[in-house]
């Protein structure tokens, strides 16, 4: 019994130190999470739908969340959006029109010249990839509610030869 007591007394400062270090790491991760969710976060973007603006094999872009919260996201911005087809997936596209505007788009640009005009309803935005031949966007799944926009991509960090701002088209 006294041996158990001695054992605990020996380990107590180490356990205390372990706790305080874990708390420090937890506080850092908390701050990192708050920054990532509400201020700015890096995102890896890959796929052909935003060529030539973004690479096929993967770009790291910085996404800021403040514009979306203050309603300052508008046509021409590259945005990261939660996919309306698969809620666990996020897609990166460009906003072409906002609520109230009418959009004229090519339904199947590779096959025909047929175009279609749609008025974007209230509270929604129309997103399209820059590479309209290989992009699944509002032309397929319709206008997207503004609440699904996660943030605006404003700066490219990787690859290094393309480092710089994602200017509006």
């Amino acid at each position, binding site marked *: 019994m006294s041996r158990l007591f001695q054992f605990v007394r020996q380990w107590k400062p180490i356990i205390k130190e372990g706790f305080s270090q874990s708390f420090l790491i937890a506080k850092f991760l908390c701050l990192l999470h708050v920054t990532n969710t509400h201020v700015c976060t890096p995102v890896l973007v890959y796929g052909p739908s935003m060529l030539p603006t973004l690479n096929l094999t993967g770009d790291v872009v910085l996404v800021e969340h403040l514009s979306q919260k203050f309603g300052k996201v508008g046509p021409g911005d590259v945005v990261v959006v939660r996919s309306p087809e*698969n809620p666990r997936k996020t897609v990166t596209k460009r906003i072409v029109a906002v609520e109230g505007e009418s959009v004229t788009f090519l339904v199947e640009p590779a096959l025909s010249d047929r175009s279609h005009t749609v008025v974007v309803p209230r*509270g929604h935005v129309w997103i399209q990839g820059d590479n309209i031949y290989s992009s699944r966007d509002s032309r397929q799944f319709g206008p997207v*509610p503004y609440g699904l926009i996660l943030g605006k991509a404003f700066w490219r960090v990787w690859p290094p030869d393309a480092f710089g701002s994602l200017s509006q088209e």
Partner: protein
Amino acid sequence: MSLQVFRHWIPTVKDAFDRTLMVAKFFCGLHVTNTFLCTCALAMGPSMLPTLNLTGSLVLVERLSIRFGKMASGEVVLIRSPEEPRKVVIKRIVGVEGDAVGNEEATAVVPKGHIWIEGDNKHNSRDSRQFGPVPYGLLEGRVFWVMWPPEDFGSVGRKVENNSLERSLVVKKHKRQKFQG
């Protein structure tokens, strides 16, 4: 002489800084709990009568179910409005993806990744019958408990529609048609 005054205030400034940091850490922890675990919401309006009050009910909302699995039909949820992105509304899920919703006049199939929401008070509710199916990504949380008013204190359960037998027949018929067509 001014340097002495400055040195006199240093411990007070340090103390104030430490206390502010402690308050900031508390709010940080509270925010993380609110965003990922459980939060309160004040529900107002007639669209969820009789489940929730007209003049205001304080409800508890949990955020784990929407992340770790699909929401089932019949749950009361907190959802961001597809018409006004700054507004959050409380409605009940009537159909999930693949379900057929509607009555004798009009039937719709809920597309993949979307849900069909309706208020309990069918006569005074603006919901999917007006703005269509809503993407699953707009879900904010599941309402599971009413805290206030005291006479409504208690859990908020799932409620499957009264015509559940008819709905299941319609769903079966649609599934058969999908495979045959």
